[in-house]
């Protein structure tokens, strides 16, 4: 199948060969999808459910008419395998392929577009013929940052997932460097896996899993036990982990709109405690989840009584201040500043809020703004020695920074001057461009 011309007879021959000798790959054994391998793969591995697969393909109707080809578009076609994104024949067919393999598939309408067809190209009740090349596949990158790669061994049911705060029952096995370090059945609340020595990556991944799903998760250090490692399991700092997880069942946590104010305030007290506990243990990501709940419940709550409103504001203030602290520890300074801004929105002279915003800004090299914040701290509380010393840090840094700038610019200006001089000589015959008119 090198050119489109001349393939028609060949295509028909292939279709006939498939009908005759093709392997029936349907689970139902109803000859709905027949397959012949044209070129075996160079690797023994097949893609798993949920994997991102890259293919090139060409599709023809029974009369030999080509209806689609990824090669015409000049880019491989990418989809998630086994999730019903593509026609049934493909989910079945591509799952049987090995990397590098080229195969022919003959698909009955029940495994393609059925009686409805697919306007404008596929008529009703069409049997489709495909040539497919499996170029590559990789596990699903759950957060598009390479931190958690999932490969599904058994697909779950439905489309709903546990949310943050949902109660889940799972079975898990944890591996590090080929050694199994953990194996248990456990029931816990998503976001609080740490209580059972389960790293944050599992909590995050669970929010993308379905009931009954069984998968393998590859966790980067950030989603694993991080810099601290896990002495209990003999896990070093920054280790990569592999978990096998089965989500046996779950019960969703109430969404914010399902809770009334009273319930929100009661829960806020509980999660605040929990957040503080995580914070003290240095589990900042977990603490962020807990404090974040307070914000999501109370930030947009309207129609509170005076008493409720007071309680709500005090929870929110504490949540924002603590979130700011967590983000400082996590080195996410922009977020830290945002939280301080919100805290200061509730209480404009809040000493901690001002101080933490100053710290964050200092670390973002915004020395002038940082200095302002620390000065405001001193206005609120002249006894704050830390703020006083931070101001002098700011001043020192500003000075250093200015000097460095000066050196850089000095060089730059000399260079510009030299270049301009050269240009001037070259252009001396031409006229000088006119500036400043507008």
């Amino acid at each position, binding site marked *: 199948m090198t050119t489109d011309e001349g393939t028609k007879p060949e295509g028909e021959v292939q279709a006939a060969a498939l009908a005759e000798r093709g392997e029936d790959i349907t689970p139902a054994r109803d000859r709905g999808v027949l397959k012949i391998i044209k070129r075996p793969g160079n690797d023994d591995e097949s893609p798993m459910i949920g994997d991102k697969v890259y293919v090139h393909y060409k599709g023809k109707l029974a009369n030999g008419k080509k209806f*689609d080809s990824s090669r015409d578009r000049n880019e491989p076609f990418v989809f998630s395998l086994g999730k019903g994104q593509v026609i049934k024949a493909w989910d079945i067919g591509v799952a049987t392929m090995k990397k590098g393999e080229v195969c022919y598939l003959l698909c009955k309408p029940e495994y393609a577009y059925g009686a409805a067809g697919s306007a404008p190209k596929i008529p009703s009740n069409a049997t489709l013929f495909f040539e497919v090349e499996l170029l590559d596949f990789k596990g699903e990158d759950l957060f598009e940052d390479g931190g958690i790669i999932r490969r599904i061994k058994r697909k779950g049911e439905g489309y709903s997932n546990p949310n943050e705060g949902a109660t889940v029952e799972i079975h898990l096995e944890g591996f590090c460097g080929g050694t199994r370090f953990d194996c248990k059945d456990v029931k816990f609340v998503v976001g609080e896996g740490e209580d059972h020595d389960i790293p944050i990556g599992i909590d995050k991944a669970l929010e993308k899993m379905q009931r009954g799903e069984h998968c393998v998760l590859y966790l980067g250090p950030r989603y694993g036990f991080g810099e601290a490692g896990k002495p209990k399991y003999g896990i070093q700092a920054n280790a990569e982990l592999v978990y096998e997880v089965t989500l046996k069942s779950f019960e969703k946590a109430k969404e914010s709109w399902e809770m009334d104010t009273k319930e929100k305030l009661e829960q806020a007290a509980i999660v605040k405690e929990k957040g503080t506990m995580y914070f003290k243990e240095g589990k900042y990501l977990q603490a962020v989840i807990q404090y974040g709940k307070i914000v999501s419940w109370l930030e947009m709550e309207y129609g509170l009584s005076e008493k409720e409103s007071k309680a709500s504001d005090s929870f929110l203030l504490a949540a924002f201040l603590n979130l700011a602290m967590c983000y400082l520890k996590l080195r996410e300074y922009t977020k830290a500043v945002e939280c301080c801004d919100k805290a200061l929105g509730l209480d404009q002279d809040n000493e901690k809020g001002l101080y933490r915003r100053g710290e964050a800004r200092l670390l973002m090299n915004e020395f002038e703004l940082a200095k302002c914040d620390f000065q405001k701290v001193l206005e609120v509380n002249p006894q704050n020695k830390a703020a006083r010393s931070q101001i002098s840090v700011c001043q020192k840094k500003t000075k250093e920074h200015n000097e460095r700038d000066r050196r850089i610019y000095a060089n730059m200006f000399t260079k510009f001057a030299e270049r301009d001089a050269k240009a001037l000589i070259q252009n001396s015959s031409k006229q000088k461009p006119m500036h400043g008119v507008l």
Partner: protein
Amino acid sequence: MSEERSQTTMAVDELQAIIQRCQILEESDFRGEDFNLFQVAGQKCLEDGYAAQLLEVIQNEKNKVIIKNMGWNLISPLVRCILAYKQEDDKRDDKREHCLKILDQLVQLCNPKELFLGLLEQIEQTSGEKVCPTVMLLLQPLQTVLLKLQNKKAYSVGLSLAMIMNQLTPLPVPYTKQQIQEDKLGLCQCCNAVVDFAKPFVNEVVKNMEKSSEYNDMELKEELLKFCMKSLKYPLLTAQLEQLEGIEEQPFRHFATEIIDILQDIRELMPLVFLHHKGKRSYWENQEFEDIERKNSADSLACLSYLMFVQHFGINCFPMVFSPSYLLQCNMTHIEVLLKRTEESMLSKGLDLFENCLLRMEDNSLLHQYLEFRDFINVPQDLVKVMTLCPIEHLRKKSLNMLQLFIDKFDAEGKYTLFRCLLKTSNHAGVEGYIIQKIKDQIHLSLTKAHDNVWFTRHHLISLLDLVLFLPEGAETDLLQNSDRIMASLNLLRYLVIKDCESDNQTGVWTTLAKIEKNFLKPLHVGLNMSKAHYEAEIKNKRENRREANNSNTVYSLTVSEEKMPAMTTEMQLQVLHSALFTFDLIESVLARVEELIEVKVKAAMDENI
């Protein structure tokens, strides 16, 4: 005559004077004052109708440097003149011709950067019916200047396109065939001219992409992408995009094809169609901006989807391997966006897109799990809103058809869940009546087909019947307003009682009979008696009043959607009251029949037991 003559010379002379003074100056010695004098004199020449003389001055080789620096000042009066001539008679053709030549000369001679700003300023300042003529006039010059620009080209192209589109956006988009043919403001023509304007820049991007994979003018590409997104939202989202009889090349269809072609050429079409499934790169650090952008692009993407799937624009490069249910799932977001609107153009696009996606599916093939996606629950509710609130009849009808089609596509559990949801959310007796009728159809299928269907028999059905066979506010329910629902419920109950014997009890209706009597039949009796008494008393009242006052003064008025309805005479009121009584009688007779059937069946069963 001589006075006029002297005025002529005045304007031209003044221009000559300043020109002569500047001719001997170096470029760098031009002063702000000179610019002013030049502009005033030039403008006067144009206003007094001496375009020919001005053209001569501009074409003079000796004045090249002056024009290069100062020429752009003439753009504003020039544009004003050209547009003014256009509206007047043919005699001015000559002068208009001269002005156009001047514009052409300025484009050739002037400093591109200043000319660019001068042209853009003209577009910025125009408004109303002048927008299209101004844009049409300046597109060609603007394109030439942009192609000459050395620096910040991508930015300038983007700025021009954004400015033009922003100026066009307030204009109403022609929708009917007549409006399109008339094209009163010139919008149809103008849009297509804007695409032609953009083409050289598209070609540039294409050429660069061919050269290397890591093309360096991402910037220009981004600007063109923004233009396409903007065009999809306005005018395309509000435009008529169906083929119209009698118009060979429907201008907006043409425009749409061109926009899709651009997207395809700069290889952004496919990424856009599947945008919401990939965490697309975000330009904004600030969450708020990102939200605004997402909201803005939601409209554009919905329009794009409509163009691809319903109108088949660009479908050639669309992969033909996606499953119909996945396509529906991807489009559900767009359908929801469109159905949330109230404009005919958008609602009909939403309904067409929905129909297109549903027709790709086979009946009973959509898994109930899809209802776990929020938009699968939201869209049918939006349909209900359209079919109960939309003032346009064909859209109401189509919404109902789409609801029917949507229901048809689901598996039994999906239908069941959907019925429950719609009964709880529709708040409209007519819709509820319709749903109850659909429930009856499903029960009928379950009872007649060989294979057992658990969702419309036994305990699942009973819990659904709980939502059907009751009066929302007990005996106090407004029976008239709820008559559709009540009649459908009674019909359903009658069907169940006839079809299902107490001994079989396949539907479970006999188990729950006591509950039905308590929640539905008894309060219905009470309600009927109360309502009838009330209306009869009302009729009696009216009649007596009529006799007493011999009508006249007591005229009721009624307002429907802020429009005052014609006043009702007592006669008309009586008619309404009588038709209400008739409805109650109807309900009562069906109720009696149902109770009779129940009694007979219960008795028969008891006899059998003895």
